[in-house]
């Protein structure tokens, strides 16, 4: 029993990271209908930015985290401006291919620059281990969950309560009409990328802290899985991305613990397909009947 609780706790930490990455996916998808395959790599870049900030320049952890988020936001804006914006009117699949190209580019540039071998992440926060009975919780796990949840609430607030959030929702629903309202949609889209990327970067830094290992290919699998999480929860829906992330994280850990870790990657996708078959728009997604 304790074992199960321990595994679920491990799953929540992992899930909160998936959730953070999934949020960016969901936002970009919501606004551009683009599966931004480069998002996983922005998460990786965020981890490296954090690595430089904390390790090389010796920033404190909160500052390092903010630096990584800011840097990734700029990167997100640049990518959108130069790789995606010119293709806004092109077939959607071309945009998708471009996103994959950007993803390759980021990975391989990083391999060139920092090498492919994994690096230890600067352990700025000394590890503390708490025992509750036989169950182990570390201060890092607590930080990860707290930071993720705070960021999610912040995002939810921005999207629901602020003017810019309203503009985001408007742009995601109908770009042309948003233009008629006087909304500068380029700015709104840039901002969406910035926010999504900085969330991914936060996830990257937290992962560095949690797993103490970062490398240029670290974004590939989490990227895919976070997208699965976003779809699971209902893509384009912010609480859905969080829910999906947690479900996926917990399911994966439970599967590795009680079935086999080799089928873990498959489980994410099996869950995905099953959920899509039952609820074609994800758990929280509203099933829109196609207008006839």
């Amino acid at each position: 029993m304790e074992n199960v609780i321990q595994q679920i706790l491990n799953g929540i930490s992992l899930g909160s990271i998936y959730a953070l990455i999934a949020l960016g996916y969901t936002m970009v998808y919501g606004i551009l209908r683009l599966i931004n395959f480069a998002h996983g790599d922005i998460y990786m870049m965020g981890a490296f930015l954090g690595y430089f900030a904390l390790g090389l320049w010796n920033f404190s952890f909160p500052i390092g985290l903010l630096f990584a988020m800011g840097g990734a936001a700029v990167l997100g804006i640049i990518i959108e401006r130069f790789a995606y914006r010119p293709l806004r009117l092109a077939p959607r699949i071309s945009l998708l291919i471009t996103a994959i190209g950007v993803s390759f580019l980021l990975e391989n540039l990083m391999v060139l620059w920092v090498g492919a071998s994994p690096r230890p992440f600067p352990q700025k926060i000394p590890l503390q281990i708490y025992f509750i009975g036989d169950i182990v919780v570390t201060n890092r796990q607590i930080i990860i969950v707290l930071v993720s949840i705070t960021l999610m609430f912040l995002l939810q607030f921005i999207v629901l309560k602020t003017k810019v959030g309203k503009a985001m929702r408007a742009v995601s629903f109908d770009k042309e009409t948003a233009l008629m309202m006087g909304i500068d949609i380029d700015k709104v889209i840039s901002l969406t990328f910035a926010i999504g990327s900085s969330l991914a970067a936060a996830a990257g830094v937290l992962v560095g802290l949690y797993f103490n290992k970062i490398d240029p290919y670290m974004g590939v699998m989490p990227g895919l899985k976070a997208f699965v999480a976003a779809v699971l929860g209902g893509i384009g829906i912010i609480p859905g991305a969080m829910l999906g992330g947690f479900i996926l994280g917990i399911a994966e850990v439970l599967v590795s613990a009680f079935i086999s870790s080799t089928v873990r990657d498959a489980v994410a996708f099996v869950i995905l397909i099953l959920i899509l078959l039952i609820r074609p728009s994800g758990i929280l997604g509203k099933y829109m009947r196609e207008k006839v």
Partner: protein
Amino acid sequence: MQRFLKVMLLLGIIFSLLIFPLQAAGTIKIGAIFPITGPIATFGISSANGVKMAFEEVNAKGGVLGSKIELILEDDQYKAEEVANAAKKLIERDKVVAILGEVASSMSLVLAPICQASKVVMITPTSTNPRVTLVGDYIFRACFIDDFQGTVMANFVYKTLKLKTSAILVAVTSDYSKGLAQFYKEAYTKLGGKIVVEESYSEGDSDFRAQLTKIKAAKPEFVYLPGYYSDIGPILLQARELGITVPFGGGDGWDSPKLLETAGKAAEGCYFSNHYSPESKDLKVQTFVKNYKKKFGETPDALAALSYDAAMLLVEAIKRAGSSESSKIRDALVSFTKDKPFRGVTGSIYFDQNRNPIKSAVIIEIKGGKQVYKATVKP
């Protein structure tokens, strides 16, 4: 249609550039195929570094048989079809005399038949699967095959450390890891030890807490963890976090400065089998480690050392053969014997009838943040 023709023309030009070899005379061409991008790029880059350094040293001393060595390095992204393309290109277009590669046994199994068919010598630095060299008489390797290291470690744990229960955590995606684990298990249970739990992970994973939680519950005295250092570091850290205090152990995949960097204190008191100890007094080892550090800014790992040796072995064979003809190199390679072995960084090497090297292993303990020599095991 105009544009279409232009595109076709351009592609035609690219294509024809591909087929016609660009010959540069006066050098001995040696190919190398490693996964320097893709999921196991870490290992590929280390291997490539070892090879590059070896040939640069040889060329600095005036080359071999009076000509310089030209290294043609190819990336295969850890994909079978890329290995095949790279091999065909090296053999047919660049006309190399020998190929060094690949890292992984599965990829070496794609490479070997091609080399064998074209009668080009192939030396794989690190592929441990016995099948590789069985493909034909032009295929060699520079590393132990699986059974040796696994058995060595089982003996050491049971007899020297006197630990009677053990857990195994194996990387199922790695031939190497699976092989080691299998032979460790066989030898250990034969000696009377008990494997209390077997868990697995995939290379490149980052969360091992699920498996470790289960291992913790089984309360073993020792955990055998054959795998590569890139995964070992996080595993050790997470294990210690979860409160597993027993020693861990593995094979030459552990040999990297990165391990100590990542794992830090978590690695204290762990053991692994290796080809050599970096603190060995052997001058060859000392200069290799020093030069490598100077050139690449880091201590070499086992892959770099083995690749360096594979390259040097090849050069030595060319010297002995007095020719850069592939068949002569092959003959020279099998002519190394117990009394007249090739002396490399990873030990003295000569080949058995299946072209597997016969060499001894050392056990290393991690103590005070350093690799400390513990024992030597002869085959």
